[in-house]
């Protein structure tokens, strides 16, 4: 047996870019699926239509991002192959988006926390040195802007609404807060991409996210929960460590495609 004479090469930028595209695409695929669970079940008709519309936008963005991920990977996988034929451990979404939809208050708070993360990151990504990524981000940002207006205005209505809506919204905020440090936590992949100008400098976006989120929470007469240390959340969804809920979501989302591979209708 011969001894390898060289060390393994450092990760190529292409692997990093693929990783970023999966993180962005999986966030939207999983959250789009969670929102679509409301179809036919939302409290009022207008809201049913609104949540389905947002879900559709997110799935459209996921399609663009995962298609690009397949191109960057160069192994012939398209967006459907990436959505339907990967297991939970291969998904790179943050854990915030995979939690069960909960009540309407929980869905709105989760959506708001994500939507603010989406606008600040897409705004930065629209200036990416990757022309393809910049184009997808600029397109998606237009949609994210009216998404955050929708979830943000609901935060104000629910938080500053009835005793029950206030109580449920605060409870959702308390439950979800510990999942928020993962949104803008940067690992080595992010650091390398930021140095090349391909990915955003995530920690630099944290003050913008904090300012917007805390301002709306206060205007909604809600209380900002106690902070949790960031370090505890670095090894999370971005490295494939998920809650049990993602596996259950994927089982439902992937069953038809896996039972009938290649089927069309």
């Amino acid at each position, binding site marked *: 047996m011969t001894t390898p004479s060289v060390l393994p090469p450092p990760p190529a930028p292409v692997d990093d870019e693929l990783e970023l595209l999966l993180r962005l695409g999986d966030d939207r695929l999983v959250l789009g699926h969670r929102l679509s669970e409301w179809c036919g079940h939302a409290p009022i008709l*207008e809201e049913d*239509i*609104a949540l*389905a*519309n*947002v879900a*559709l*936008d*997110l*799935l*459209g*963005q996921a*399609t*663009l991002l995962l298609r690009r991920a397949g191109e960057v990977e160069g192994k012939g996988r398209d967006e459907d192959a990436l959505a339907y034929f990967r297991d939970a451990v291969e998904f790179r979404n943050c854990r915030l988006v995979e939690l069960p939809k909960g009540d309407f208050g929980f869905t709105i708070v989760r959506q708001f926390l994500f939507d*603010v993360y989406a*606008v*600040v990151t897409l*705004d930065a990504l629209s200036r990416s040195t990757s*022309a*393809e990524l*910049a*184009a*997808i981000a*600029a*397109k*998606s940002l*237009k*949609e994210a*802007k*009216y998404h*955050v*207006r*929708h979830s*943000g*205005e609901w935060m*104000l209505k629910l938080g500053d609404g009835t005793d029950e809506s206030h109580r449920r919204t605060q409870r959702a905020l308390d439950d979800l807060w510990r999942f928020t440090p993962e949104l803008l936590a940067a690992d080595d992949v992010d650091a390398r991409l930021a140095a090349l100008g391909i990915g955003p400098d995530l920690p630099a976006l944290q003050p913008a996210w904090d300012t*917007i989120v805390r301002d*709306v929470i206060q205007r909604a007469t809600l209380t900002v929960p106690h902070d949790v240390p960031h370090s505890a959340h670095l090894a999370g969804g971005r490295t494939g460590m998920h809650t049990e809920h993602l596996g259950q979501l994927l089982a439902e989302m992937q069953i038809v495609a896996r039972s009938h591979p290649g089927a069309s209708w």
Partner: protein
Amino acid sequence: MTARPIGAIPTRDEILAILDTVMDPEVPVLSVRELGIIRDVEVSAEGRVTVTVTPTYSGCPAIRVIEQDIVRAIEVAGFTDVQVRTALAPAWTTDWIDPEARAKLKAYGIAPPGRVESGELVQLLRHRPATQCPYCDSYDTELRSEFGSTACKSVCWCRSCRQPFEEFKTI
């Protein structure tokens, strides 16, 4: 339609005229050109037609139908070497819908889009200029929901004629 010799090479203007007849399936009073989604048309020396299209919304289900309709319309005119290319940048904006097309939207009962404003990333409870009711022209209207029957439309209500109406979203 006059018969063309097989293998005739179209001019760019001929293709543009064909595209004027391809309507948006969701808003059938607007052609794909009036909608502003046709970004380029090229005809190669060999007669290959390449139409570059930009999507309206990332998840708009109509985009595939539109692409098929474009290919079919050009093929029916006798030019069979057609491909549709997608370009995401620059991102589509309703500012590309011209005044004539806006008038068609209004006549069809859809309030045309306003002008795109730049500004803060997050604008809650923003003051927006009142939308004019496409039926009675009153400005005494309110936005009921930013989300409607398709990705491109919001739902409004006219207090004067007491009718709900749709508005083409401004993006």
